């Protein structure tokens, strides 16, 4: 136990620094982009087909693409997606993805967006219909109905599932180690390879992940409590 405490004192600062400089930015950027993908995908999937022929065709294509995107990212492992984007695409001369950060953020955000789009879609559909009708009866445009009335309320409803997605993403950023990003888990692997304190190092890094996810869980709790009065 004493040895473990000494190990923690020695390596915790560098692990936490790596969390601040790699894990948390990777999580935050990917989550924000993922949320944008999720909202766009959900809105496309629940949109009614317009009656005008060209608009109907465009919307049908968008709906198909949105459904394909969700299916693709939910039906393949994230580690495979990372390998395809980081190792596969540059091999096919798409060099934009040769940068590990670009590849990681692309995969993490698209993956999060695919899963979260279902949470956002469910949340939008669970806003009572009368809220939308009340907005329409005031004369609001369709865009105003969604941005001013439906989405703010869907945001509250989707706090629990989106918090789940955020927590999963934070842990999944450890997969960035396989595409050469020296994030927190990669760093712990490097340290364990040097000092051979394998069990202790991996337990220590697990504790740091648990600490970070606990902070997010507490944040979720307070956010839920704050927004609980926005129900009807």
């Amino acid at each position, binding site marked *: 136990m004493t040895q473990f405490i000494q190990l923690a004192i020695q390596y915790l600062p560098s692990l936490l620094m790596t969390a601040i400089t790699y894990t948390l930015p990777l999580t935050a950027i990917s989550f924000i982009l993922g949320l944008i993908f999720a909202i766009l995908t959900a809105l496309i999937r629940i949109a009614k087909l317009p009656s005008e022929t060209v608009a109907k065709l465009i919307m049908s294509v968008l709906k198909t693409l949105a459904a394909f995107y969700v299916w693709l990212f939910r039906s393949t492992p994230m580690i495979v997606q990372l390998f395809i984007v980081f190792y596969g695409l540059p091999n096919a001369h798409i060099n934009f993805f040769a940068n590990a950060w670009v590849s990681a953020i692309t995969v993490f955000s698209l993956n999060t967006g695919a899963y979260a789009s279902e949470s956002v879609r469910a949340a939008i559909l669970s806003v*009572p219909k*009368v809220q939308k009708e009340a907005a329409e*009866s005031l004369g609001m445009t369709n865009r105003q109905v969604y941005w001013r009335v439906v989405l703010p309320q869907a945001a509250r409803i989707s706090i629990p599932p989106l918090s789940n997605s955020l927590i999963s993403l934070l842990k999944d950023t450890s997969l960035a180690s396989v595409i050469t990003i020296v994030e927190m888990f990669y760093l712990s692997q490097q340290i364990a390879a040097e000092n051979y304190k394998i069990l202790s190092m991996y337990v220590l890094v697990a504790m740091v992940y648990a600490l970070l996810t606990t902070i997010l869980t507490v944040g979720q709790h307070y956010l839920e409590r704050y927004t609980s*009065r926005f*129900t*009807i």
Partner: protein
Amino acid sequence: MIEVKHIIKQYPEKRALDDVSATFNAHETTVILGPSGSGKSTLLRTLNLLERPTSGTLALNDLTINFEAPIAKKEIFNVRQTFGMVFQEKALFAHLTVLKNIIEGPVQVKKESVAVATKKAEALLERFGMTELAARYPSELSGGQQQRVAIMRALAMQPEYLLLDEPTSALDPELEAQVLHVLKELATQRTSMIVVTHNLGFARQVADHIIFIENGQIGYDGSAEGFFSATDNRIQQFLNAMSF
């Protein structure tokens, strides 16, 4: 005056409105009565285009809408500006305070400045004796208070007509009385109102004009006095059933 002619609303399994024609005069309280599922709410919601009938026409001011033809967005906007609507329940915007619920329409739709809309909203809150509730969220109000705020939100748009779709049916008697008191006051001030209700006592007190609908068809369209003294068998049955 608003006029609907030959309105038919056909669902796959049911005809909700069957050749309904009626007029609604300004500065009158029209009460729409009828058994559950008779088409009362469908008729009311047709007026502000929340329901799109299968056929028929709606005429108001200089505008005539033929429901068999496409309706332009501008026409929908103009129709909706004519009416303020109060729903049965849960229609206040849950994420906005009472004050913000009231100014949302004027600011977002009528493009009034926040300062002007707030001033008008504060005057409404004072008129309804609810000034102290301005900063509360709908979840922090009783059902009766919520409905009074919903009435204020509708009035804030300065509509020509107020539509009320069973505004008290989700309330217990004490809270219902609070809302009915407000509606009676509005009726006294000759606010143009079209009300769907099951409350015969309220209809008796405030209605100038009654439309009785049954099975999607109009069974009575005339004065309130005429309705309550009607000898028609079906109206008598309805009045007796609703009295229990």
